[in-house]
């Protein structure tokens, strides 16, 4: 074990998961002295009837929804965020609820910064520029969970804002909301969670708490990922994958992003593919690079991915190798996982652009490693 005993760890949200989780939102908001939330979501979620389910879940409570804005597009620009912040102020709302993923959650975080600090959101670009508590913020995830949804990061206008204060205060993972629409979205969500958990687990900066969260996420993912992708409308596996996403986000937020995550996000930005698919295409290459460089895998990886029985029956010296093999097996068993970047039709020049983008964003990453991962994945 290489876990460091001196570390900082932060994770804020109260997580409510399971049947009738949304019904708890009014009581929890009441704890923040908030009864007048501003709800935002996308047209897609609204038209699939999920917004109506949310409104019904708040029946028989003291919570009056200030407005349910259901027109957030897939890309939420700064203009819309500013307008929505003004809308929230005009309605006198005291909290924000985001139903959905990606741009909806990013927009909600942006609105929260504007209405809580009184300043423009773009002034807070970078790490830890938001230095105070914001308004109570609830996220109700749906089947697809984007990389930054459940963390303290927001991507607005191509700029990243990272702060501990951007975490949602409450995450309500409700069985009615998280049923997957299709295998593709479930696969993308699962691969993001797997990447976040794995890179946190294998990071040289890992500590006891990131280990605890990452290994738990890996355990849940290993158990459910194949079934979740094959049967994206299965309640039990969808709930498990949503929980894995939440737990892996906690580990991810407390570590520096790894090469696969950084490259995956950069490729997604450049090509328009879902970040999970890009990460899935790069993951085997990154693991092969690790083996090539003879960086040892942790022995407890087998416990997280292979299960307690396989861990117990393996000799101590073999556990690291068996853990690596179990991980590779798990990745290759995911139905429809992209077989390298060629299957996503990513041209070499775009991949090179992604390397430059990832290296610029995360200076701690070695450019040579990024290049090798890309060349192995192409």
């Amino acid at each position, binding site marked *: 074990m290489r876990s460091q005993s001196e570390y900082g760890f932060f994770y804020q949200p109260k997580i409510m998961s399971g049947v009738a989780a949304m019904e708890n939102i009014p009581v929890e908001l009441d704890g923040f002295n908030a009864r007048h939330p501003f709800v935002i979501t996308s047209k897609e979620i609204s038209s699939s009837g999920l917004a109506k389910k949310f409104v019904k879940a708040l029946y*028989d409570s003291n*919570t009056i929804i200030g*407005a349910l*804005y259901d027109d957030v597009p897939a890309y939420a620009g700064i203009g819309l965020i500013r*307008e*929505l912040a003004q*809308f929230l102020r005009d309605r006198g709302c005291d909290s924000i609820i985001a139903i959905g993923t990606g741009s909806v959650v990013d927009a909600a975080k942006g609105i929260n910064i504007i209405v809580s600090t009184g300043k423009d959101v773009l002034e807070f670009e970078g790490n830890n520029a938001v230095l105070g508590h914001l308004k109570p913020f609830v996220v109700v995830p749906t089947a697809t969970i984007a990389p930054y949804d459940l963390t303290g990061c927001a991507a607005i206008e191509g700029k990243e804002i990272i702060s501990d204060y951007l975490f949602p205060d409450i995450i309500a993972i409700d069985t009615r909301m998280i049923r997957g629409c299709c295998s593709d979205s479930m696969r993308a969500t699962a691969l993001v969670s797997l990447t976040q958990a794995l890179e946190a687990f294998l990071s040289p900066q890992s500590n006891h708490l990131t280990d605890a969260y990452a290994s738990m996420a890996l355990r849940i993912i290993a158990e459910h990922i194949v079934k979740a992708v094959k049967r994206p409308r299965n309640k039990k596996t969808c709930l498990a994958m949503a929980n894995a996403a939440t737990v892996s986000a906690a580990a991810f937020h407390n570590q520096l992003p790894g090469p696969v995550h950084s490259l995956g996000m950069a490729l997604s930005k450049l090509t328009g593919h879902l970040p999970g698919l890009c990460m899935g295409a790069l993951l085997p290459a990154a693991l092969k690079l690790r083996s090539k460089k003879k960086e040892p895998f942790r022995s407890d990886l087998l416990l997280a991915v292979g299960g307690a029985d396989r861990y117990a029956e393996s000799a101590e010296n073999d556990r690291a190798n068996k853990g690596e093999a179990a991980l590779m097996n798990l990745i290759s068993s995911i139905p429809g996982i992209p077989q390298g970047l060629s299957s996503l039709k990513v041209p070499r020049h775009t991949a090179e652009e992604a390397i430059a983008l990832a290296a610029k964003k995360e200076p701690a990453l070695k450019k040579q490693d990024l290049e090798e991962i890309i060349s192995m994945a192409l």
Partner: protein
Amino acid sequence: MINYNNYPEIKPGKKLLKRIYVATMLFVFGRAFQAVSRVDRSAKEEFAQMPDDFVLDFCVVPNGPHMIVGKDGKGRITYLGWNPAGKKITLAMRIKNIEAAMRMFMFLESSCVATSRDRLIVDGDLPTACNVLHIMDLLEVLLLPKFAAKLGVKRYPKWSQLSPLRKWTSRLLTYVRLIA
């Protein structure tokens, strides 16, 4: 520009039928608390451990319904109705929402499972709250047929814990006192 009129305020609706069902169940349980305290040995022991000023408000937040049960001047357990106004509540057990209450009172979740799923807020003495949950389990065993009670309690008592004679005597007497 956003047209504010397209996004009106949404006031929470009512789940009237569910409220009526939960209110009825709380009324029955309140009366049954009073009845079982007079007829069953283990219930008497549980109630004896409670303080003399014990008044329980078992309710659904935020707007009820409520079930108030407490000890009277002579130390007997009495059902005090549904209105907490003017009563000195020593133990408040609040179910977080009407759906959670429905799951409990439709016996889809036992009180133990509901507690572990964070559906209850307890304000007051914790050991007394545990006593109340024990009595609720006992009431479910006495009032409901076995197949339904099994869903609602953590462990259905074995013969050695609750003999059929005692179960049927307590069941009969509780029902008689409940209706009378």
